């Protein structure tokens, strides 16, 4: 569920941040587009504030970066505003309070889901000047899959630097596959193959019930089904809702049938796939890299990963975390130096070790430590090649709950058509705003 929280927070953070800019005052210092880049002097005295969120593992990574930054710039105070994942309301309130106190953060951590909100409201400063003229940036940039950077561009300018990403892949229990005599399917497996395997692995009843597949039940987790059937919640330009697309309805009905018709998945409400799967109560599940940390901690290692099965298209979804400089920042140079540290190889390695996400650079994602487990860990980075970004328009804060409300209704037996039509109305109203 970690991703859900992350994305919700991202959305909310972006929404709250408009307020920050509104209060930020007139001063804008965009970095020079031309001329050589010179890093701020080592003895510069200043304060920069950072807005981050996550769990204790994330916090450790951020704290380490702040400490490293302190070594480089001893006179710079870093206000490392870290919000532990509690509720999104808390995160908003915190940002609003900051804004009211005139302390808009210089460095903003946000995920794909919140980027459109920010870009639409001109929240971020362009990073072009830095990317073009800072030699460090060039090497870093060349190491990152262009796809990741594409998601953070608008009108040819780059606004955010990605640090990590997640794609959805299928996790399967290697031991259970072996016991049932099931071979690892090919990377081009289909929905039908998937369903056949899931049926074979669904056994027992009552307390001994084992399911073939534990359904990841949140927007990011359902999206791969849509993409692999050639549909999406939004049009490609993110301007129009496609919730009533017949292909989408067909996909949603298929996902529902996994639970209600075929019984290969438990009712998603009240069951956590990332508990069932490592407990051996489900033979497969879908997740990003973010679950591996928890599996490791629980001492669970009998698993491997597979690409998402396809119906018409081989596809999955990705979402990336990234850092931006606030347009109102008085210290864009220092903020840039801080972001570089947040995204450099040393930090990337920490991310990979923490098991929270896939590091954004190929170097870190191909380090032996990262590839050690599971067997096909390479697929984490490789899946990016056929992945599409999560469909997150500016109104994602409406789209996400509306879609999940419709899913809840559909799962409880209501009609696919009427549920999605209702959600569609809600989203269209929000897109008009």
């Amino acid at each position, binding site marked *: 569920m970690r991703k859900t929280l992350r994305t919700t927070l991202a959305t909310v953070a972006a*929404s709250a941040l*408009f*307020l920050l800019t*509104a209060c930020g005052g007139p001063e804008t210092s965009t970095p020079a587009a031309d001329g050589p880049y010179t890093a701020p002097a080592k003895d510069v005295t200043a304060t920069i504030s950072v807005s981050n969120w996550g769990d204790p593992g994330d916090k450790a990574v951020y704290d380490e970066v702040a400490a490293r930054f302190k070594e480089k710039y001893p006179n710079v105070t870093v206000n490392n505003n870290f919000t532990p994942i509690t509720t999104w*309301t808390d995160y*908003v309130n915190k940002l609003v309070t900051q804004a009211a106190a005139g302390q808009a953060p210089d460095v903003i951590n946000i995920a794909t889901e919140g980027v459109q909100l920010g870009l639409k*409201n001109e929240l971020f400063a362009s990073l072009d000047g830095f990317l073009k003229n800072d030699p460090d940036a060039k090497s870093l940039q060349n190491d990152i899959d262009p796809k990741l950077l594409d998601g953070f561009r608008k009108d040819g300018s780059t606004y955010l630097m990605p640090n990590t990403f997640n794609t959805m892949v299928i996790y399967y229990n290697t031991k259970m596959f072996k016991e049932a005599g099931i071979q690892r399917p090919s990377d081009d497996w289909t929905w039908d193959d998937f369903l056949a395997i899931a049926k074979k692995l669904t056994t027992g009843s009552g307390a001994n019930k084992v399911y073939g597949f534990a359904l990841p039940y949140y927007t990011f987790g359902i999206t791969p089904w849509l993409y692999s059937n050639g549909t999406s919640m939004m049009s490609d330009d993110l301007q129009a809702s496609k919730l009533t697309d017949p292909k989408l309805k067909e996909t949603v009905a298929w996902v529902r049938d996994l639970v209600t018709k075929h019984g290969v998945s438990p*009712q998603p*409400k*009240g069951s956590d796939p990332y508990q069932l799967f490592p407990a051996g109560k489900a033979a497969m599940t879908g997740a990003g890299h973010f679950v591996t940390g928890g599996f490791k901690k629980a001492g669970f290692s009998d698993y491997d990963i597979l690409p998402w099965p396809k119906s018409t298209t081989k596809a999955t979804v990705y979402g990336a975390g990234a850092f931006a400089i606030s347009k109102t920042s008085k210290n864009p140079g220092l903020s840039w130096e801080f972001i570089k540290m947040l995204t450099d190889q040393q930090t990337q390695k920490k991310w990979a070790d923490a098991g929270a996400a896939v590091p954004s650079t190929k170097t870190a994602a191909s380090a032996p430590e990262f590839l050690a487990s599971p067997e096909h860990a390479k697929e984490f980075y490789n899946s990016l090649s056929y992945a599409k970004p999560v469909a997150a328009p500016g109104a994602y*804060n*409406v789209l996400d*709950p509306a879609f999940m*409300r*419709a899913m*809840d*209704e559909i*799962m*409880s*037996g*209501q009609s696919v058509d009427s*549920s999605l039509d*209702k959600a569609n*109305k*809600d989203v269209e109203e*929000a897109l008009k*705003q």
Partner: protein
Amino acid sequence: MTTTTRTNLSPAALEARRGRPDRLSSVKRRDALTGYAFTAPTIIGFLIFVLGPLIAAIYLSLTKYNILTAPKFVGFDNYARMFRDERLATTYGNTVLYVGAAVVLINGFALLFAVLINQKLPKAMTYFFRSAYFFPYLVALVYVSIIWQALFQKDTGILNYYIAGLGGERIDWLNSSEFSKVSVVIVDTWRNLGFAMLIYVAALQEVPKEMVEAARVDGANEWQVFRRIVLPMISQATFFNITITIIGAFQIYESVIVLTRGGPGDASRSVVMYIAEVAFNKFDMGYASAIAVTLFIIIMLVTLAQFRLRKSWVNNE
């Protein structure tokens, strides 16, 4: 001596004795100021936390406001929009159902338990039952909801265990569109009946014993005593309880959010939850304020109607 004293009085004191209005009013004024000072916390609290927001909400309901940019006046657009909002209709429908259930169930059970507690029982037992029924009102619902959710689970819940044991079909208490509402009503009733019960108990103890005795002597049976004597005698408590449960049920929020989060879909969502969603998730403050104003007006009208009807059935002082 006395005359000397009198003549020695300062002119001001003399004026005071003669009852010059400005002197006296200064004393009065001080009294008045003291009075105001004592009531100030309440009045200031009311102005800041009730009247101010109320006026602001009425103003905002006529604007389009997303917190980030200044409110833009749009007249009655927000009110017109409500008529095409299916989700609002659903949530209002749910809320009316909750109000109806609260009035009937909370008051019915509260009265029943109050009458039972009011029987001749050992004192300790009376205290025990009274505390037991009142206890849910004191516990934070957020904690208790975890227990309720466990009770309501489809496959592992104790409720379904007994239903299945009796040969019934397992009910999906939390995730079916019909039963999610029922679950909310059950928890809401369980939580609030203790308070209403206490009011009824207090009223029952005020019913004059002589009157009951007299009725019995005249040959009235227990039901007739209850129907003709006790009920009219406690009608003020009934009126109070009904008013409070109606207002409370219109504002139902916590009981729903901790159990079902309004789901599945909007099946158990209340109007107040919907207002909160529009305001703090969609950041559509204007529309949220407009809905809030309609809810305010509805509650006010219902309460006014009750006070009007009061005369016809409440046994007055």
